[in-house]
């Protein structure tokens, strides 16, 4: 076991810090979900909740560690890295597995464990009586475990292992109801779109690691700060490729197309995928490799900001027309991921990650609330809902809290994190993007108001009698509503909570100072701009959708003639992707066919022909004529000899006797002559 404490306790202070018990054993968090995975497969079917117990237990264990680390991080700081060497390429590139304990990792451990535990508990209630529940929990554990492996990774190799594990588990879970071809297609789409982006990640990791001479993030950060000439030569290419990987996982434009379709999986999967695992992986990667972009590959930062800005605004608009409640939330996630990406790319390390932190709580809550609603009305479509606040008061209250938090209403969590992103953009001088982000906040408030109005207000349009979900489902909703409302106070600019500081400091527990901007106080002018945008969105949304929510779905007032079909067709992005695939696969297939027929087959045939000719020569020339010739010749000779000699065998005794006597006489004569 190689244990090294290389990270700093306080920003700006580089030094060795003891990890302590919790940090030294943090690897348990990376293992328990996989143990749960095996236990569920082996024993799940015999258990009362069909394996859900193991999944919940593993997350509960993880939450103990994550909470302990979180508290330790608040009070003392201290970060460490534990690695086990596994192998290496020659003497240069070493491959290690292990875990990292620093502000960023601890935040992610806590998010995955906390949201994961609540979602798993929720899933036990939600999936009760569903098909393949055991397998669902097994894949779900694999999902959470892969994410923990990813966020705990001290190097790019382990990150890629976790990254692909997350991709695999998401594929399994999205296609959980594989009896429907549509769900299978959604799973394939998610997997394939991610695979395209993963090529970037793998290539980028190799390029960067070759330049640094190590896969480790610490080494990468140090080389970035030291302006290492080898690394700076490849920084733009490597950084761009890593960013491509992050775009795929974090559903940035134009790779966002897989995320709305990923709704095909069971709702708890969506909740975990959108809140804590999977989509946050790309943002996490950008934060982990932040020094690379900050110090060496700064040329590509404007492009990253542009991608983030397009994602946050343009994709957010799509949520205005979706009828599927989960799809509204999915587009909202894409939009919020755009905020995070923009913030991180603009240099707002803390701002982007704080938004990730708050977003995990309220988006997890929104999805669980949507699941609760869907469980009650047996439909995903808002046209089958309406008026549910009377039937489902707890779901309604928590859903509204989360919506207001997402819209960015003071003093809920989303306000503080979104305000910090606006402050970062303002400070860095990206004013166009700043106004796009404000417009995005307006759109966010508008579509969340629409979703709440169509789902919970007006009169019920569906069939049957909806009723409130059981406690195992509403419990997690309430447990998530509290942080959704309150975690924003952890990072009020310029305010330090006595004894534990604030989120910025906790996150700052890392190798070297990142040099991002931290506002000294609340920038009220920006906050008011943000609040006006959000408030305007809510007021307009209420005016448009709440008054006559019954008929609203029938005649959506946002049916602007030209824009509406554009939104409904999702900017034709799916059609474009399919069109590209359709247009290229024919010529591509023909090209491959031609190559196959004439080049590969040619080589194969030539090789085969040579082999055949050689074989014929060996068979006909050497074997048949040479070897067989010798043997046949010998046997013909022996045959001839035998045929000749047998004529001596006359059967006449006296002839034999004559031969004996003649022989004896010859012997006698010879002996006499020799004497």
């Amino acid at each position, binding site marked *: 076991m190689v244990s090294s404490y290389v990270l700093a306790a306080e920003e700006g202070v580089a030094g060795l810090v003891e990890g302590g018990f919790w940090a030294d054993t943090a690897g348990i968090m990376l293992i328990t979900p996989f143990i749960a995975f095996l236990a569920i497969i082996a024993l799940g079917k015999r258990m009362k909740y069909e394996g859900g117990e193991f999944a919940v237990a593993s997350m509960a264990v993880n939450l103990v560690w994550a909470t302990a680390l979180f508290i330790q991080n608040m009070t003392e700081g201290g970060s460490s890295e534990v690695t086990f060497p596994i192998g290496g390429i020659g003497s240069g590139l070493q491959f290690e597995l292990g875990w990292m304990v620093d502000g960023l990792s601890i935040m992610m451990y806590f998010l995955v464990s906390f949201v994961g535990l609540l979602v798993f508990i929720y899933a036990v209630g939600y999936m009760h009586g569903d098909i393949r529940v055991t397998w669902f929990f097994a894949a779900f554990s694999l999902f959470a475990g892969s994410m923990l492996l990813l966020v705990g990774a001290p190097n790019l190799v382990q990150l890629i292992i976790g990254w692909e594990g997350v991709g695999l588990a998401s594929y399994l879970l999205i296609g959980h109801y594989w009896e429907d071809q549509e769900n299978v297609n959604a799973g394939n789409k998610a997997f394939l779109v991610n695979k395209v982006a993963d090529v970037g990640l793998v290539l980028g990791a190799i390029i960067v690691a070759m330049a640094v001479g190590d896969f480790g993030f610490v080494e990468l950060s140090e080389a970035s700060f030291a302006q290492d000439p080898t690394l700076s030569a490849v920084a733009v290419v490597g950084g761009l490729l890593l960013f491509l990987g992050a775009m795929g996982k974090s559903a940035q434009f134009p790779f966002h197309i897989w995320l709305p379709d990923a709704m095909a999986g069971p709702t708890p999967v969506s909740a975990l995928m959108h809140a804590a695992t999977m989509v946050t992986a790309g943002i996490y990667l950008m934060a982990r490799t932040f020094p690379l972009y900050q110090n060496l590959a700064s040329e590509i930062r404007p492009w990253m900001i542009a991608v983030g800005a397009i994602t946050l605004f343009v994709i957010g608009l799509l949520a205005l027309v979706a009828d599927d409640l989960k799809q509204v939330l999915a587009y909202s996630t894409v939009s919020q991921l755009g905020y995070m990406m923009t913030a991180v790319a603009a240099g707002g390390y803390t701002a982007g990650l704080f938004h990730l932190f708050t977003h995990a709580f309220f988006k997890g809550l929104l999805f669980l609330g949507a699941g609760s609603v869907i469980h009650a009305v047996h439909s995903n479509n808002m046209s089958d809902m309406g008026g549910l606040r009377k039937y489902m008061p707890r779901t309604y209250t928590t859903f509204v809290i989360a919506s207001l938090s997402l819209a960015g209403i003071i003093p809920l969590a989303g306000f503080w994190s979104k305000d910090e992103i606006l402050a970062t953009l303002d400070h860095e001088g990206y004013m166009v993007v700043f106004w796009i982000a404000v417009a995005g906040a307006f759109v966010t408030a508008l579509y969340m108001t629409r979703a709440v109005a169509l789902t919970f207000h007006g009169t019920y349009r569906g069939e049957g009698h909806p009723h409130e979900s059981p406690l195992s489902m509403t419990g997690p909703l309430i447990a998530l509503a509290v942080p959704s409302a309150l975690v924003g106070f952890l990072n009020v600019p310029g305010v330090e909570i006595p004894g534990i500081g604030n989120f910025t400091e906790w996150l700052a527990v890392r190798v070297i100072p990142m040099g991002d901007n931290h506002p000294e106080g609340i920038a009220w002018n920006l906050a008011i701009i943000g609040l006006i945008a959000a408030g305007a969105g809510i007021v307009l949304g209420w005016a448009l959708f709440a008054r006559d929510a019954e008929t609203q779905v029938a005649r959506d007032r946002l049916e602007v003639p030209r824009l509406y079909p554009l939104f409904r067709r999702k900017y034709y992005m799916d059609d474009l992707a399919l069109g590209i695939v359709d247009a290229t696969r024919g010529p591509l297939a023909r090209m491959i066919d031609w190559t196959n027929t004439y080049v590969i087959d040619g080589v194969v045939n030539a090789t085969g022909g040579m082999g055949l000719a050689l074989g014929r020569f060996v068979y006909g020339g050497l074997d048949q004529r040479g070897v067989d010739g010798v043997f046949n010749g010998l046997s013909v000779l022996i045959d001839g000899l035998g045929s000749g000699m*047998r*004529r001596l*065998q*006359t*059967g*006449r*005794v*006296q002839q034999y*006797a004559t031969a004996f*006597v003649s022989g004896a006489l010859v012997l006698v004569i010879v002996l006499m002559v020799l004497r």
Partner: protein
Amino acid sequence: MPYDVGSLMLLNQFLVLGAALFSIGVYGLLVRRNAVLVLLSVELMLNAVNINLIAFESALVTNAAVGQVFSIFVITVAAAEVGFGLAIILMIFRNRRSANVDELDLMRW
């Protein structure tokens, strides 16, 4: 060992007798057609050998009766052989109505 010239003289005469009997036997063996006579010729050759054995024994070996013992063996074996041979010839004659060795070429290739 010193040889008695007189007994050596006598030995030559016995050897000539033996050689003459052996030659007659060979002649009979090769020429006679009747199987019984061929068998008798064989007996003649065996007895020629017996004479040689006795002659050498009495001429060269003074006190051990090696030659006599050997010739008695030969006579015994010859008697058995004649017994077998005549039985075979009897069976052939019964089957083929002939004891002519020229016709007995069943064992040819």
